[in-house]
């Protein structure tokens, strides 16, 4: 399903969370699709099942997936009202560092603004 980078400084746990999130956000895993079980994913990636379990729990708390006892784990429909403030801050950090690089490259304020707007328009479905 995805590969892990053992040389990455990011922990395996974070990599599993990020990879699954990416697959859900981009729609490779559709809402209501069943995710592999903790056991299967653990064997597939050769990763400690406790780590996968923890990643699933974190994704569930963030609203990306939900578990039905006895049936398995499924991808959620995109959140309708709940916004994770912590995640917003993390993403803001990423945008911040991107903007810093634009400034360094000598891009003007209005051009930078245009880049951001274009990027936002690339995606549909804003509220």
């Amino acid at each position, binding site marked *: 399903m995805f590969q892990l980078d*053992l040389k990455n*400084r990011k*922990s395996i746990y974070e990599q599993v969370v990020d990879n699954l999130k990416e697959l859900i956000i981009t729609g490779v895993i559709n809402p209501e699709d069943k995710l592999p079980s903790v056991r299967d994913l*653990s064997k597939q990636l050769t990763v400690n099942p*406790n780590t996968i379990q*923890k990643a699933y729990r974190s994704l569930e708390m963030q609203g990306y997936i939900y578990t039905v006892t006895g049936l398995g784990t499924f991808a959620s429909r995109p959140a309708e009202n709940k916004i994770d403030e912590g995640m917003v801050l993390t993403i803001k950090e990423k945008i*911040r560092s991107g903007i810093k690089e634009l400034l360094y490259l000598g891009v003007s304020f209005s051009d930078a603004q245009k880049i951001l707007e274009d990027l936002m328009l690339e995606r549909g479905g804003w509220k």
Partner: protein
Amino acid sequence: MIKITGVDKSFDEFKALTDLDLNVKKGSIYGLVGVNGAGKTTIIKHLTGILKQDYGQILIDDEPVYENIKMKEKMGFIPDDLYFFSTYNLKEMSRFYKALYPGWDQVRFDFMIKQFSLDPVRKLSKFSKGMQKQAAFVLTMSSKPEYLILDEPIDGLDPIIRKLVWKYIVEDVAEREMTVLVSSHNLRELEGICDSIGIISKGSMLLERDLDELKADVHKIQIAYKVHPENPYAGLNILHKETKGTVDLLIVRNRKEVVEEIINESKPAIFDILPLSLEEIFIYELGGENNEITEIIL
């Protein structure tokens, strides 16, 4: 569950273990690390019932291990220095294991010797060191232990076999909730496989924690300012600080969000935050007594 509390052990005048505590949850993969001579192998020999402690308790599933045959039947142990009967081959050895371990799985054994390409009728003493280690692994995993204790298991194994060894271990943890305790100096490999880590130093437990929590708590940050503010790091719990030219390098024990909030406040020109690798945590925690080593490596 493995529970070791307040264990002391002396060999004549030498105190090998001092008030050592160690806890491993069921179904966990626990990495035991420490510098050479810290007492890793000694504690493993206690855990497997080979040595008897002077004081303290060593319990597995609430039962003492020493001279406890029922408990040892559920345990697999691969020591650092392997021993095989001099004239035995793998086939004969498998009969010996079968007689000792009630959980013996012949189908798995037959499958594994093919997968590892080990000759079952060649004398084990004629095997290379790496192959002997593989043979020990095949025998141990075929006995389907509930507790697997490994002392430096991947030393001297090639990368393909190492991957296969971890695959078997992960599979058994996932399928039957096997509990694993593994000691190693290969921290990068432990980091990829363990969920808990115990760092021992001079015969005592220095630090025992969930690996991800441990890593979420300590960060390495690099900061540079155009104009260095008065005291930009107030409020941070700084473990280590050094300045290289205009760049400050800090090791801090704070949550990531806290670090980001405090540092961004001071408008840095460069600000990088990196999680520490287990290797760095190890060096930081244990190199403290010897600052020269810490400086070279961090």
